[in-house]
């Protein structure tokens, strides 16, 4: 039997329409908008001003504080302005507007395709390079990678877990990257293993990507300590805590970090970015984005420069279909519905999912029939219908006692509810409120 996590889970329709589509580089647009906040943590300070000339790989946003990630220009050209621009959140935030001229790269960046396996840097030097390159979690969470690779004092990583699960329906960017850049990803793994000083790494891949499982199983033989584990196709297999549970049998306790059970999890896309940063001196200036949807003419996997307008990517996939009702940044389970598609690709844009109007609308909610299906599917072992009710009636102490803050917002409850109740909407609200109360109590 395939390994999997041990509590709850669902199996939504996979709809991997763009599976097997080779990653196509998309032409550099005439102008890019690069937001100064593309990660969890403090926004960057701009270090360029209007009229400045930049190249691909020129630092334009300097990170302030530890939990933050540098931002580099993804194009060469002239800085037009630093102004507010809407991002995926729907809010207007500071961004650098650059008019594109030519395609000049900073000289220290190695743009060749040659694989560089040798890495003689120390753990500290590797971490510094990762931090300098502005790498964040590429699965969509966008947590700064160098922070995640720096365990809190007294904690020691034992195993590196590589997330090649891609459990979100529709998305195929990680899958395709694994198929095309397996060597680079494996070198990236050895580099991160060195940075963490661990001897063991496990690559978890959902079993609907049998080609990737086979490819990595074969190639990993050349790398001591790296194993490949096919996983049951079950959502949210790629959730950090779920993946650790599936691969090691250890469950991260409530409120604790994965490092508390000796695990550090990194997405395959992140490891590819680490490879490029450490071995090729290339900062994070582009990423793979799946553009997909049932009505999209040619669902595809594109490599786009950060700051490229989403519209450019959608046009490359055949344009916005007539029937469009909703556009999602990310996958259908955890992605964000966009208020406008006039926003740029950022470090966390794993996919653009275009949903027809018919499927975009929610059905009216009915009274809870207490079937308990949300309880059965919750991968954190919570009682979603109770948490919704407690939020509705603002019973925060009981919500806290029933572990509302453990919710990972995977959406399995709302997905499964036969009464169409917006369970996660309420729980998210209650979780925010309870987290606020807990913080206030600590201060």
């Amino acid at each position, binding site marked *: 039997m395939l390994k999997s996590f041990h509590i709850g889970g669902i199996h939504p329709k996979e709809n991997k329409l763009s599976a097997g589509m080779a990653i196509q580089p998309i032409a550099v647009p005439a102008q890019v908008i690069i937001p100064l906040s593309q990660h969890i943590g403090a926004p960057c300070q701009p270090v360029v001003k209007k009229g400045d000339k930049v190249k691909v790989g020129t630092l334009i946003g300097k990170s302030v504080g530890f939990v933050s990630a540098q931002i580099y220009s993804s194009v060469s050209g002239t800085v037009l302005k630093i102004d507010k621009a809407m991002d995926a959140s729907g809010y207007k935030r500071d961004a650098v507007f650059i008019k594109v001229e030519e395609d000049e790269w900073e000289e220290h960046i190695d743009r060749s395709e040659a694989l560089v396996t040798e890495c003689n840097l120390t753990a500290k030097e590797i971490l510094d390079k990762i931090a300098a390159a502005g790498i964040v979690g590429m699965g969509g969470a966008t947590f700064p990678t160098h922070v995640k690779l720096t365990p809190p004092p007294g904690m020691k990583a034992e195993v590196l877990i590589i997330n090649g699960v891609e459990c979100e329906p529709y998305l195929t960017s990680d899958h395709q990257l694994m198929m095309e850049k397996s060597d680079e990803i494996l070198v990236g793994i050895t580099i991160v293993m060195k940075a963490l000083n661990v001897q063991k790494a496990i690559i978890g891949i959902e079993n609907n990507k049998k080609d990737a499982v086979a490819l990595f199983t074969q190639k990993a033989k050349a790398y001591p300590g790296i194993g490949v584990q096919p996983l049951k196709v079950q959502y949210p297999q790629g959730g950090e805590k779920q993946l650790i549970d599936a691969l090691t049998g*250890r469950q991260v*306790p409530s409120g604790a970090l994965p490092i508390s059970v000796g695990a550090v999890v990194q997405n395959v896309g992140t490891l590819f970015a680490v490879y490029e940063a450490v071995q090729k001196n290339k900062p994070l200036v582009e990423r793979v984005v799946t553009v997909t949807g049932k009505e999209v003419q040619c669902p595809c996997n594109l490599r786009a420069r950060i700051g490229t307008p989403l519209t450019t990517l959608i046009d490359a996939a055949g344009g*916005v279909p007539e029937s469009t009702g909703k556009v999602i940044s990310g996958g259908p389970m955890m992605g964000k519905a966009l208020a406008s*598609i006039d926003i740029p690709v950022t470090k966390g844009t794993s996919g653009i999912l275009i949903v027809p109007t018919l499927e975009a*609308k929610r059905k009216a909610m009915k009274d809870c029939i*207490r079937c308990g299906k949300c309880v059965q599917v919750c991968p954190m072992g919570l*009682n979603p219908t109770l948490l919704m009710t407690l939020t509705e009636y603002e019973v925060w102490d009981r919500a806290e006692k029933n572990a509302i803050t453990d919710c990972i917002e995977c959406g399995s409850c709302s*997905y499964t509810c036969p009464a169409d109740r917006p369970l996660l909407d309420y729980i998210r609200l209650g979780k925010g409120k309870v987290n606020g109360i807990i913080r206030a109590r600590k201060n």
Partner: protein
Amino acid sequence: MEQKLIVSPSPHVHSGDTIPRNMYAVLIALIPAFLVALYTFRLDALLITALSVLFCVGFEYLIVRFVMKKEPAILDGSAIITGVLLAFNVPSNLPVWILALGALFAIGVVKLSFGGLGNNIFNPAIAGRIFLLISFPAQMTSWPATAIAGEATDAVSSATVLGLLKHSPEALPALQQMFLGFESGSLGEMSAAALLLGLVYLLWRRVITWHIPFTILATVALFTGILFLIDPLPQYNPLIHLFSGGLMLGAVFMATDYVTSPLTKKGMIIYGAGIGFITVAIRLWGAYPEGISFAILLMNAFTPLINTYTTPKRFGEAVKHG
């Protein structure tokens, strides 16, 4: 692009599961038992079931529309299930006006006065049956002879297995007969085989989980089994207990009612064990030959309490350092 986009929080997809899907699956699961009822009670079974459904759906429509002044959702299937289950819980020769009263009580009092589907504390069909049993004990316990056994037994009222077990165990039918369900009793409760077929269907469609029905049956088997080992009298025979009376119907279709049963697996097991235990206690030492309805009703009352004190097994609760 000028067209407005829909913005809503995740998730953006839904399983497609609906309340009617679950309700109609229960109705499909009831078909085998209904076929056996048709075979044993002929047209009476059809008539009582059809009328019971008509009364339940009709009362729901009228009360929701004209008393509660809301849009009736009779097509969700829940009133149809109440109708079928109520019919399955009465003798096939019950006077129609008594059946109508039962339906009115089940739908009007037990279900709608609490706010309708999802808000009721007690299972409407069970409460309806008990209301009738207490109000019309004679009519509710005079069982017609079955079409198969008709020539041999009293045509007006033939005893049920549990009745015999209590008063004259020497006249018990063969176990195999009980399992197939051709002995007498309430309309849809007799065939353990047909009801188990329904259970398999419900489990396969994932409408219910095994926890409630299995725990009830296991508790009954265990409890009577222990007594049978101590003193092997027919009234302690666990197989007779499993395959007679309303146990199977109750365990599979009535105790598993979503609204009135606990949410968590732990809760379901406590609830099921409670039902099994009370059922046997009433059967062996109570005034009534059958106790499953009372057991379910009682445990329905405990469901909110069980929900409060049983939490699902949380992630990270049992930390393994392997």
